[in-house]
């Protein structure tokens, strides 16, 4: 019954994924599992066998920040930083399905990720301002692969 969150943080030392509420309410521990966003605090690790997991460590590629990470930096989308990895993963999930989201789509995609610093507006603005390169989908795939190898 070990949680995916604990395996990531404690066994694999991938501490980018944060624990907030531990009950699926706050989104701090969001990661992507086989291309879907999940709260890793609610995933028993046994169910992860054979699955591809992408954590925030897998967003940047070849030492270059993901466009979302650059946008969060430029637009003040992060303050204390605890919610940021989850915000980035939920945003990456949105952009993969919807590369040019409107504000209501951004709000829905991030509705399960709580932030107590920014007041959310700068996070929403960061996502809206993100310019994905043409090959973004491809790099998302390769970084998933990289995280998987890190297991």
């Amino acid at each position: 019954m070990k949680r995916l969150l604990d395996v990531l943080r404690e066994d694999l030392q991938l501490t980018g994924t944060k624990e907030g509420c531990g009950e699926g309410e706050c989104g701090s521990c969001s990661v992507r599992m086989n291309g879907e966003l999940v709260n890793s605090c609610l995933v028993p690790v046994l169910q992860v066998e054979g699955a591809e997991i992408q954590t925030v460590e897998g967003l940047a590629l070849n030492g270059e920040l993901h466009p979302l990470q650059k946008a969060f930096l430029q637009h003040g989308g992060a303050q204390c930083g605890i919610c940021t990895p989850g915000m980035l993963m939920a945003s990456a999930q949105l952009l993969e399905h919807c590369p040019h989201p409107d504000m209501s789509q951004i709000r829905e995609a991030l509705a399960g990720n709580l932030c107590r610093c920014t007041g959310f507006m700068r996070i929403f603005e960061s996502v809206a301002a993100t310019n994905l390169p043409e090959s973004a989908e491809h790099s998302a795939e390769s970084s998933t692969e990289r995280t998987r190898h890190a297991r």
Partner: protein
Amino acid sequence: MRGNAAMHDLVAPGELGAVLELLAAEPGAWTPIAGGTELMVAFAAGRLAAPKLVSLWGIPDLHTIDVTPQSVVIGAAATFLDLRRHAVIATEFLLLAKAASWIGSIANQGRATLGGNLVNGSPAADSSPALLAYDAEIEMISVRGRRRVPYSAFHTGYKRNALLPDELLYAIHLPRRFAHHVQYLRKVGTRRAMAIAKVALGATALLEKGVIREIRLGAASLAPYPTRLLQTESALIGQVITRGTIESAHRVLLAEVKPIDDIRSTAQYRRRVAVNLLDEFLLSLPQEETQT
């Protein structure tokens, strides 16, 4: 107190037959777990009373959605994102697609399953009003075979249901005959996402020349379990919508519902909202032209 992983034995046989064998070998000893959005919360809080769990995640028979000319059959472990993305559900069973979009957040919708929502049996379950309004049937399975009950008979008490100790919820059947019904669903909660309903009402009705020929009202948080409002339905069958019909439906509704005071709302507020939701639905029905 935090949950202790060593206190819970989780197995994942990976196929349905093996899960059913486990349930049959030790009836009541195993707790099925699918997306974990309910049980893992209880685990984290140290209040999961389930020493032995069997995983249903990733078992193909349990998460397929089959469409036949007569019905849509949803595997119990289909997630709410699966429902939202399914073309037939999104067009013919709008209320269910809408309810799916209200479950927690995207991360919860990708893991939470329709069957889990029903087996958990919360009086406030988001999917229940829609399934009641669509006259859903529940199919259960065990090594002894399969059987079906109307969803309106599935819940038998607070957090109790018709499943026997060796049975698993297998599928939810939706009859494809609501294309001409007026359909309605509204949830009243504190915010749009991550909120549990204070009250929700789902409804379908079929009218003929302004007369209500069929009506189904499915309610959440108005009784110890999700329930059809059968007495209120009876008061409306065969009626045309007039001020008098609506007022008498209010009286029956207020006598029929049994809301409680709890952390999310009060019984008094729930009664008032229930009446308002019924009103909103009834006033959306096509009215006969001579009526005002």
